[in-house]
């Protein structure tokens, strides 16, 4: 079975999704989903272990030799992202039981978990596959199921925001598809390793340039790169809490992974030096960090505040990619992991507040920190990590990002990263002020702490935030190994 791990990671959630869809309501759909995700975490860790020690894994589907057949090709980068995705899914699920019960009509629960698993399948599939068209298919599997999941939110705005996401997401996917078509028409292959081999001969062609432009714009829509982020704040605000946790920690991360894979693996080395795409990413990254952080300060809904902060955090990742150095990409990969931890913890804590009072508007949460000390503690530590205080995971990624920027004397980028942190102090401060320093309304005086089933997963992530802020061996070591394996980095 050992050699089938990379395949089973995709097939197990897929098969479970199909079975869960026809299960009767009750605890069974949740339990099967839980089991499937935990199996996936184990498999993903085994896969990462194997890749770190044994090198690249290649798995051909259907017995067709690559580059003709679909190949699953796993190196350190894939394996790490797959572990992030399955880890977050496994931590989200214990949380999902109560939260979903509260926010989703009971007759839709089995289908909810089925859609969740399909989304999970799609995200894992993107990380596993080595075929660029297959990436498109899995991208659409995960996107279609996340449109469904978002539309299950309890407010009617969930429907319109899901529709908006659907339009923009489909445009993005079609752009990606067109780009792949252009590249296929010139190279005749879809296998990414094979593309990396053939592309240097045809780099000068206008078709290739156009194709990559289409692909990158499509991906930018999917990863909510500023200024193509318009779908994200609404989608995160109105989605059910569990889904916000899951999507914010995984969906955009996987799109960032695809960008790294395309830019530094598929594209021939030196390609980024001939076109100003790196500067472009740096510019959009800086603009995203500053403008979106300022937007976050003025939000009156906590979920929307965190959603805008997510767009700003994506700015950091894109900035690291734009620097186009090993250090920059390392920082981006570290931030993929750390941002999943902190946003997961924060959205979970906000979900616990919603579980108790049914709202997360700034005016309604006054003084809740005193009634719900554990939830409040999670928000404080998650917030500190978001700011990048030493001792938290957020500090590590910002530290490496700043180092990467200094290495290239990119002082404007350094200034933008620090300004972003200062702006984060303001919006996290507003959140803490509302939660702790404003007096609670009379009706909310006797509010109880959130149930343990919501608090435990939240605090697992909170502790992870602190642990990975102190012990960086896993994150930094793996990220460095992953970045060094990407051969096309120029600087």
């Amino acid at each position, binding site marked *: 079975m050992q050699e089938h791990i990379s395949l089973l990671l995709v097939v197990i959630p*897929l*098969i479970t999704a199909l079975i869960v869809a026809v299960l009767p309501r009750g605890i069974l759909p949740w339990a099967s989903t839980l089991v499937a995700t935990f199996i996936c975490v184990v498999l993903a860790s085994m896969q990462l272990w194997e890749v770190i020690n044994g090198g690249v894994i290649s798995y*051909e*589907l259907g017995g067709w030799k690559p580059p003709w057949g679909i190949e699953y090709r796993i190196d350190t980068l894939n394996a790490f992202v797959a572990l992030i995705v399955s880890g977050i899914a496994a931590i989200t699920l214990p949380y999902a039981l109560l939260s979903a019960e509260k926010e989703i009509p009971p007759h839709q629960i089995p289908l909810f978990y089925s859609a969740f698993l399909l989304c999970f399948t799609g995200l894992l599939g993107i990380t596993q596959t080595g075929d660029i068209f297959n990436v498109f298919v899995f991208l659409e599997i995960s996107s279609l199921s996340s449109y469904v999941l978002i539309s299950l939110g309890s407010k009617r705005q969930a429907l319109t925001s899901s529709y908006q996401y659907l339009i923009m997401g489909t445009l993005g996917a079609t752009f990606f598809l067109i780009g792949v078509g252009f590249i296929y028409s010139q190279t005749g292959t879809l296998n990414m390793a094979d593309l990396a081999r053939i592309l240097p001969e045809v780099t000068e062609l206008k078709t290739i340039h156009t194709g990559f432009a289409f692909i990158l714009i499509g991906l930018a829509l999917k990863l909510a790169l500023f200024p193509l982020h318009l779908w994200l704040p609404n989608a995160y605000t109105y989605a059910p809490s569990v889904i916000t946790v899951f999507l914010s920690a995984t969906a955009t991360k996987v799109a960032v992974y695809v960008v790294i894979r395309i830019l530094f693996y598929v594209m021939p080395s030196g390609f980024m030096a001939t076109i100003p795409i790196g500067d472009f990413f740096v510019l959009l990254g800086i603009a995203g960090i500053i403008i979106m952080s300022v937007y976050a300060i003025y939000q009156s809904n906590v979920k929307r505040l965190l959603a805008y902060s997510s767009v700003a955090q994506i700015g950091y990742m894109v900035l690291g990619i734009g620097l186009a150095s090993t250090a920059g990409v390392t920082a981006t990969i570290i931030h993929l992991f750390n941002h999943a931890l902190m946003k997961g913890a924060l959205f979970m804590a906000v979900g616990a507040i919603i579980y108790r009072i049914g709202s997360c508007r700034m005016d309604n949460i006054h003084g809740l920190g005193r009634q719900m000390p554990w939830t409040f503690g999670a928000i404080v530590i998650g917030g500190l990590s978001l700011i990048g205080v030493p001792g938290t995971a957020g500090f590590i990624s910002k530290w490496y990002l700043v180092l990467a920027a200094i290495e290239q004397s990119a002082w404007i980028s350094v200034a933008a990263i620090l300004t972003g942190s200062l702006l984060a102090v303001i919006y996290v401060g507003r959140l803490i002020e509302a939660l702790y320093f404003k007096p609670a309304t009379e009706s909310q005086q006797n509010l109880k702490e959130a149930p343990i089933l919501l608090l435990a997963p939240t605090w697992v992530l909170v502790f992870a935030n602190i642990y990975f802020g102190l012990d960086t061996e896993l994150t930094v070591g793996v990220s460095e190994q992953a970045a060094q394996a990407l051969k096309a980095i120029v600087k």
Partner: protein
Amino acid sequence: MTHNLILRVISKFLIPLIILFALYVQFHGDFGPGGGFQAGVIFSSSIILYALVFGLDAAEKIIPTAILRILASLGALIYASVGIASIFSGGNYLNYSVLADTPVAGQHLGILLVELGVGITVSAVMLIIFFSFVGRSRP
């Protein structure tokens, strides 16, 4: 409901032919143009024609939505389990060659089963889409 005699007679005559054609496209898919996607859509169109002429309730009596949901999952499960079966026969996922004694027979068996799964899922999903849209207008 008015008595559209001509419509009823003609569609009663046509529906078996459509189903027959769907089966032909389904099982002829490994020799010529065809396969599960097309066959599934053709098959579901016969039920949709029935629903248009004889009413939604009559159509749902033939294939209730609950059964359609199971069928939709079942088809995809057939597909996935063919892949699992080839793992247990010692090949890679979806490598049909190991399913039977000779690779050619294995490929034959594999593609037939996979296309059958696709056909079931596609026809069930098309019907679910149709029923759930049309069912919305019911009071």
